[in-house]
Structure formats: C-alpha cells, structure tokens
C-alpha cells in the first residue's frame, strides 16, 4: 500500500505531514486530501482560499495540488468563471505571501551571515528553522 504525505501551502514555507497515511490508491488519497482540506478551511474559508494542499505518493510528486478555493463547498453556487477567478486570485495571493516570506528569510540570513563574518553574535534559528541555510552549521 503506498504511503501518501501532505504539504499545506499557506503562504509560509509550507507545513508538512511527513508521517502520512497508507491508502489503497491515488483515488483514496484524493478523497482523503479533500476531506483534510475541508476540515482545515472550515470556519476560515476566506483566508484559506489562498491555500493549497499538495499530495505526495511515497515521497514523490506532488501527484495532486488541491487549491482550497476549488473545493470550498461554500462557493459551489458561483458560476464556473467567477469561481475560477477566485481560484486564480487565491493562487496569486499565496505566491505573493510566499515571496514576502522568502524575502524575509533572505534578510534574516543576510544579517546573520554579515554578523557571522564579523565574529559577532547572530540569530542562529527562527521559528525552528536555521537562519543560515545549507553550508556549515557554525563558523568555529
């Protein structure tokens, strides 16, 4: 039975479920992902329209990308064109948020690298992630 793992793209660097679930096939994974996406967005649909759930099979993929706006049942009454507009807008908003997020990480990393090169103290990690990506763990 293949193992399916998930990544929530919510405008940050992404949140992973690395444990995943064992399901029969891709169809099962698709149904499971739709249920998860609906549970995650329930009660906060407007904010979640920009989010997407990516599904991986045995760590390969993504085999599906589920934009939340495309499966939000509270939008089912809209004409397809209008709905597509919301999906596209959500996608662009998420990309913008991801860009801002990445830019912020770059600023932190640059500051840390400058401080490190001058032998000054620097922020080694932020919210559980290393500020300086790749490379050596410390300058010693």
């Amino acid at each position, binding site marked *: 039975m293949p193992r399916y793992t998930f990544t929530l793209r919510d405008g940050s660097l992404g949140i992973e479920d690395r444990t995943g679930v064992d399901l029969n096939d891709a169809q099962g994974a698709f149904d499971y992902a739709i249920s998860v996406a609906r549970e*995650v967005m329930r009660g906060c649909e407007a904010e979640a329209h920009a989010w997407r759930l990516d599904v991986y099979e045995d760590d390969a993929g993504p085999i599906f990308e589920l934009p939340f706006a495309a499966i939000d049942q509270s939008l089912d009454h809209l004409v397809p064109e209008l709905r597509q507009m919301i999906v596209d807008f959500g996608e662009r908003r998420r990309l913008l948020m991801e860009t801002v997020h990445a830019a912020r990480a770059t600023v932190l990393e640059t500051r840390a690298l400058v401080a490190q090169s001058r032998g000054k103290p620097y922020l080694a990690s932020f919210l559980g992630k290393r500020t300086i990506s790749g490379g050596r763990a410390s300058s010693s």
Partner: protein
Amino acid sequence: MTIHQDEPRNRNRFLAALGRAEYESLRPHLAPYDLRIGRRLHYCGDEIEEVIFPHSGLVALMVPSRDDTGTLVLMVGCDGVVGGFAAAANAPATCDAEVHIAGEASRISATVFRRALDEQPGMRRTAACFDSLMLAQAQQTALCNAVHPVEARICRWLLEVHDRSSNSRVPLTQSTVAQMLGVRRTTVTLVAGRLELAGVLTCRRGFLQIQSREKLEQYSCSCYGQLRSHAVRLAETIPVEAQPALGSTTIFAALPGG
C-alpha cells in the same frame, strides 16, 4: 484542621465543594482508583457501577458513532465527576468514558453515591451544580463543533487541559487530539504546524508543548471564556458553609489563571 495532600477532599473539586458532614458520610466508601491511559471507565449504554472522582489526569467523554471512534463532548479532570449524572438517576451511561491522560482518582459504588444523594439535599444541590456545568460544557461544545475552525478548537481544548493539569507539556498525541475533535490526524498535524509557526505551541513526538498561554487564549474561540464565566457564576451559588477546606480556594475559581 490539618490539610493532608492525599485526602481525596483536597484533590477533587466536587469532594471539596461538599459540606464537612456530607464528605464524612462518603469518606469510608472512597477507594483509590488508577486512571491508566486508554482505560474505559464505562461504555455508552452501560449501567454505572462506580462513580469516579479524578484527582489528576483527564477523562474524555465521547459519543460513539457507527463509522468511527466518535467525538469528544466533555472532558473531566480534578474539576468534576465521571458517572455521577447517570448514577444519580440510576440510568445507563450516555457516552463512553476513556482516560486520555493518566492520573489518580477515588471511586465509590454508584449505589452508595445514590443513597448519599437521596439522604442529603445539600449534596444533591452540589451535584446539580456540577451537572449543570457539565451540561454547559456539552452545549458549548455542540456550538463549537458546528461553527468554529479546527485551529481555534485545538487551542480551546488545550486551554481546558492546561487548566486541569497546569502543566504546559500536554501528553496528548496528535491522533488523540484528532479523535477528540472528530477530524483526521493529518488535519491536526497541518493546523498544529501553523500554530507552531505562530509561536503558540510546539509539536513533539507523543506530546504538545504550550509555548505561550497568552497566545493560546488569543487563538482560541470564545467558547473557552464563555464556559469560564459560567463556571465562576455557578461557583457563587454554592452555599458558603459548603465551601471547600482548601483555604480561600473556591471550587471553580481554583482553576489556574482564575
């Protein structure tokens, strides 16, 4: 009067809310009870044989459903009684009771408990207060499950658990939290991941660590505050002579942060 830490009266809020004579009438019948994780205290439809007064740990009351494990309606810790409602009415249990966090408790036979309630109107009133609070919790949960996002619900339950244990390390797995909320485990992992990025909590193998109680309250839905204010109002209705032996501590306001 010396206060013994091991005395059940000082460790469970129902027993603490009883008048002295009322408590003394129950005391010879109280026996220690081990709340082992995963232990079922009773199943839905069972006749209640024992009433449990938890001292620590957490018992989840869940309504079973046909296709899965069911959803949490109430949680009971040192602030309440398991099975008291049904025992008082001599009625079958209306939900499953399962230990989610290990701890200690006192137990008493349901027959003895029922007789004590019949003979002592004061104790029956106190029991009614606790029943009313349980009902309030169930009503609030019904609203919460229907309208609030998973993120706010996780925060609300963590606050409730934190109040009952005052330990920021919450020994609940993500699967248990998922079962409590009636959602898939993946949903809890993803939403908890968002809360982790927001600095509310950190997820570790087998437990959740609360990083900031203040942020937890900020991310929680209004249900937590509603229930708290209800509990405080109810505590005021308990007669003064029945206030607990624990110095100035009142039964519900004894919750941390109260």
